[in-house]
C-alpha cells in the first residue's frame, strides 16, 4: 500500500506538487492523469525517491520512505519509463536479470525467472534471449522493460507513460496485456499517463492532476458520471463522455431477457463493451442486438430504448436528446 499525506515538492521557489494526499490500496491500479507539467511524473518519482519530497509524508506499507534505505527501497519497486531505459550494452536476458542479480539470487533461480518472465510477456525465449536492445522494436523493448520491472517480483510497480512512444496498435496490445497481467499478479500499480482512454481502460482508481494539485480522484465510473469541474470533464472527452462510460460497461450488464419478439439479426457477445454495442447498432441500422454467450447461444437482448431509459433514471432528471 502506498500513502501520500499532504505531500509537496518545491523546485527552488516553484511548487511542482502542491499538498496532495493519495492512497493506493494493495493490489489496486492507480492512474495519475493530467496535462504536461501537472506534477504527475514528479509525484511518481517521489515514491521511489528519485526526487526527494519537500513536505508531507510518503508511506509504503505504513513506513515513511525516508526511513528506508533508498537502494533497498528501489529494488522492491518495479519501474518502467517511456524511453524503456534498457541498457544497450546488455542482452535482453541480462537486462531482465538486473535486479535479481543486484539481490544476489543464485544463478539457476535467475535463469529460471528470466525464462518465466519472457514467457509471461510473450517474448519467445530462443528468439529474444541473446538480442540486444537496438535489435528490438519499440513494443518488444517495452515488453522487456516491463519484464525487468517485474523481475524480482516487487509488490509495487511504478510506470511513467510506459506506452507513450508506441504506435496506436502496439499501445492497445500492450495495454490489454498489462490489464491481463494485473488481473493475474495483483501488483500495486501507479501509472502516469496523459491519455485518458488509457487510464480509463486500465485503472481502478483515477487521480486527475492540474498544476500540482489533485483536482479529483475516484473510480473511473464516478469521474465519468460526476466530473468535479469543466477541466476534468474536458479531459474525459467532453461530449464523448457518454461513449467513454459505455466503453467501461459490459453489454451483459445492460441486457434484458429475450422477449417474445423475433430476435434481432445482429449478434454481440456479452463480454463486449456497451460502446461496441452502440457502434454495432449504428453500423447495422438497428435499435436492438441479440446478446450471445461464448458459444454463440442467444442469452438476452440489448435495446437502445431501454438503455436511454436506464440512464435517465440513473441521472434522476430526464433529459431530452
Amino acid at each position, binding site marked *: 500500500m502506498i500513502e501520500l499525506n499532504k505531500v509537496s515538492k518545491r523546485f527552488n521557489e516553484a511548487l511542482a506538487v502542491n499538498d496532495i494526499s493519495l492512497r493506493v490500496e494493495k493490489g489496486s491500479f492507480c492512474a495519475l492523469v493530467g496535462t504536461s507539467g501537472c506534477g504527475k511524473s514528479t509525484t511518481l518519482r517521489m515514491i521511489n525517491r528519485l526526487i526527494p519530497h519537500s513536505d508531507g509524508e510518503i508511506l509504503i506499507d505504513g513506513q515513511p520512505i525516508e526511513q528506508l534505505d533508498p537502494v*533497498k527501497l528501489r529494488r522492491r519497486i518495479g*519501474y518502467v519509463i517511456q524511453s524503456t531505459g*534498457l*541498457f*544497450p*550494452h546488455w542482452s535482453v536476458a541480462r537486462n531482465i536479470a538486473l535486479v535479481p542479480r543486484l539481490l544476489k539470487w543464485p544463478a539457476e533461480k535467475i535463469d529460471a525467472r528470466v525464462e518465466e518472465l519472457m514467457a509471461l510477456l510473450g517474448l519467445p525465449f530462443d528468439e529474444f534471449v541473446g538480442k540486444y*536492445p537496438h535489435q528490438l522494436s519499440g513494443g518488444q523493448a517495452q515488453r522487456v522493460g516491463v519484464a525487468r520491472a517485474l523481475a524480482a517480483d516487487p509488490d509495487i510497480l511504478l510506470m511513467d507513460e510506459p506506452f507513450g512512444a508506441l504506435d496506436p496498435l502496439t499501445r492497445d496490445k500492450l495495454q490489454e496485456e498489462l490489464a491481463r497481467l494485473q488481473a493475474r499478479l495483483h501488483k500495486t500499480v501507479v501509472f502516469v499517463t496523459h491519455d485518458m482512454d488509457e487510464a480509463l481502460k486500465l485503472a481502478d482508481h483515477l487521480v486527475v492532476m492540474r498544476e500540482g494539485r489533485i483536482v479529483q480522484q475516484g473510480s473511473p465510473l464516478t469521474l465519468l458520471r460526476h466530473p468535479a469541474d469543466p477541466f476534468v470533464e474536458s479531459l474525459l472527452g467532453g461530449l464523448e463522455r457518454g461513449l467513454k462510460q459505455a466503453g467501461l460497461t459490459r453489454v451483459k450488464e445492460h441486457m434484458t431477457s429475450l422477449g417474445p419478439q423475433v430476435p434481432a439479426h445482429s449478434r454481440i457477445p456479452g463480454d463486449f463493451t456497451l460502446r461496441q454495442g452502440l457502434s454495432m447498432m449504428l453500423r447495422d441500422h438497428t435499435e436492438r442486438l441479440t446478446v450471445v454467450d461464448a458459444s454463440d447461444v442467444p442469452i438476452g437482448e440489448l435495446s437502445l430504448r431501454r438503455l436511454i431509459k436506464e440512464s435517465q433514471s440513473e441521472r434522476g432528471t430526464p433529459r431530452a436528446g
Partner: protein
Amino acid sequence: MQARGAVSIPRAWPNWLPAFGFAALLGLALFGMELLEPFFRWVEPDARSVIYARASFVDLLGRHLLVVGAAGAVTVCLGLIAGIAVTRRYGRDFLPLAGQLASIGQTFPPVAVLALAVPALGFGTPAIIVALMLYGLLPILRNTLAGLDGVDPALKEAAIAMGMTPRQRLWRVELPLAAPVILAGVRTSITINIATAALGATVGASNLGDPIIAGIINANMAYVIQGALLIALLALTVDSLFDLLEQQLRHRPTD
C-alpha cells in the same frame, strides 16, 4: 529505441590486416634496414656510413616503447581517476578546473616542458616521461569526461531507479557505455606520444629519436629518414592495434 551501430560495412580485407601489415613492415625495418642501403647511399653519397649503427634499432625501439608505455600508464590512470572523480557528485565543483588544467598541459609545447623538466629531473628518461605525461593527459581526460557525460541521462536514472549503488552504476553502466570514447582518447594520446617521445633524444634519453638527432647534427639525411621511418611505422602499428580493439569493443558488447 533507435537502432545504432548495427550496420556492418562489407570489407574488402579482414580487419586485422592493417595492424598485421604495419607490424610486419616495422619488423622488416628493424631487422632489414641494410636492404635499403642503396637508397640511403643515393641520399647521402658522401657519408662515411649510411645505416645508423651506434645502437641496434631493436634496442632503441624497446626504450622508446618503455618511455611511451610508462607515460601512458600514468596518464591513463590519472586521466581516468580525475575524469571519474570530477563527474561524481562530490567532485562536480572541480569539473571546470580539471578541464582547464588539462588544456594548459596540452598548450605547453613539449619542448618547453622538457626544458623545464631537465633542471628539475636531470638529463635522461625521467624528463621525457614527465613531458609526455603532461602532453598526453588532455586527450584521455577530455574523452573520459565526454564519454561519461555522453551516457544517456535516462539510462543513468534507470540505473538509480533499479536500485544500483553509485559504484555499481559506475562500473556496470557508465564506464562500459563510455568505454569506446575513452579508448579513442587513449589512442590519440598514445599515438601522439609515440611521435613526441623522439624529442627525448635531445635530452639524452636514448630512443628512436636518436638517429634523427644524430642525423641532424652530422648532416646525414639517411639517419633522419631511418628514425622517422621507424617512428612512423611504430605509430601506425599501435594505432591500428587500437583500431582493432575499438572494433572488438563495438561489436561485442560486454555482458
